[in-house]
């Protein structure tokens, strides 16, 4: 999957997250979360798994986390990537 456009998905309500994607020449992941110290690595691992599942190698992806659970992160990343690929 190739990211052709800027896209976003999610919200900043509690238990959700915002995902922003943009076309890029390489992979860059940025994570903002009030629990980054405890869960930053875990969020990054989940994001990378979803990128791999979608076959996306180059993208700028920014996460603003509001306490989302793993299934929410997976879904929001996946939707943002699909929206960005259209």
């Amino acid at each position: 999957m190739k990211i052709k456009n800027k896209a976003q998905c999610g919200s900043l309500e509690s238990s959700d997250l915002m995902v922003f994607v943009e076309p890029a020449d390489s992979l860059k992941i940025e994570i903002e979360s009030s629990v980054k110290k405890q869960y930053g690595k875990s969020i990054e691992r989940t994001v990378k798994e979803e990128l791999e599942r979608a076959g996306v190698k180059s993208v700028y992806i920014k996460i603003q986390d509001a306490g989302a659970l793993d299934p929410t992160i997976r879904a929001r990343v996946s939707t943002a990537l699909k929206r960005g690929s259209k």
Partner: protein
Amino acid sequence: MKEFKLRRTMLYIPGNNPGMIGNADIFGADSVLFDLEDSVAASEKDAARELVGSFIKNRGFSNIEITVRVNPMGSEYIRDDLIAVVDGNLDAVRLPKTNSKNDVRELEKMLEEVEKEKGIGRKIRIHPMIETALGVENTFDIALSSKRIDAITIGGQDLTADMEIVKTEKGDELFYARTRIVMAAKAAGIDAMDTVYADVNNEQGLIEETQMVKKLGFTGKAVINPRQIKPVHNVFRPASEEIEWAREVINAYEAALKEGKGVIAIRGKMIDPPVVKRAQKIIAIAALENGAEDEE
């Protein structure tokens, strides 16, 4: 496959609300319904179906019936909805605005295709939602249209809109549709679920409506707020006099069987097989209710 014993409440959860979806199994409802239809804006249909699908796949939710209300047959969304949510952890799909047996058969065909593509070895059940005048008139045909159907449900808001009338607090205008749907469900041997009670601040109104639909024969009721669960469960709980009567009937029936008597009477009334069956069901529900209360 999970075994379902009680279906007194089915809690609606908006499909794009991760906070509520994540907590779906803690509220005490017998069944939850993730909604991809009316509670989701057109621009968020893609996000909601992925979110619901992700939770069903990655979290599972054990010990509770998991259903999804997809978008109606003929909409541009339904196939993508099914692709996103069909999973070994999904129990049933609710089909809104079911108008005819053809709608069910088309859904069944789509489900078969998606289950096969995903390698799911079980058949996901179908809950047709009757919410048009045409659907009401076709209810019995719909109820019999697929072996996957184990419950049928009425949608009061859309039905009254389709009938060009106002849905009132008392709900007299739904009497014909309710009784017709219950009769079709009983004839087909499936559950009948009633529509939601929209005023979440009026507990007495909810209780009275639930008492009325229980009398008509409904198995349970859809709810839109966790606060509505307990009052509905309380109404569907068999009363102690009912349980006492049922025990008496079963004891007399078993004694008559032993003695080879064909006809029995209790409190001056003749007891025949349908009455015994009803008594057995009351005892079974009471036993399950006790189990469910222990878990709550």
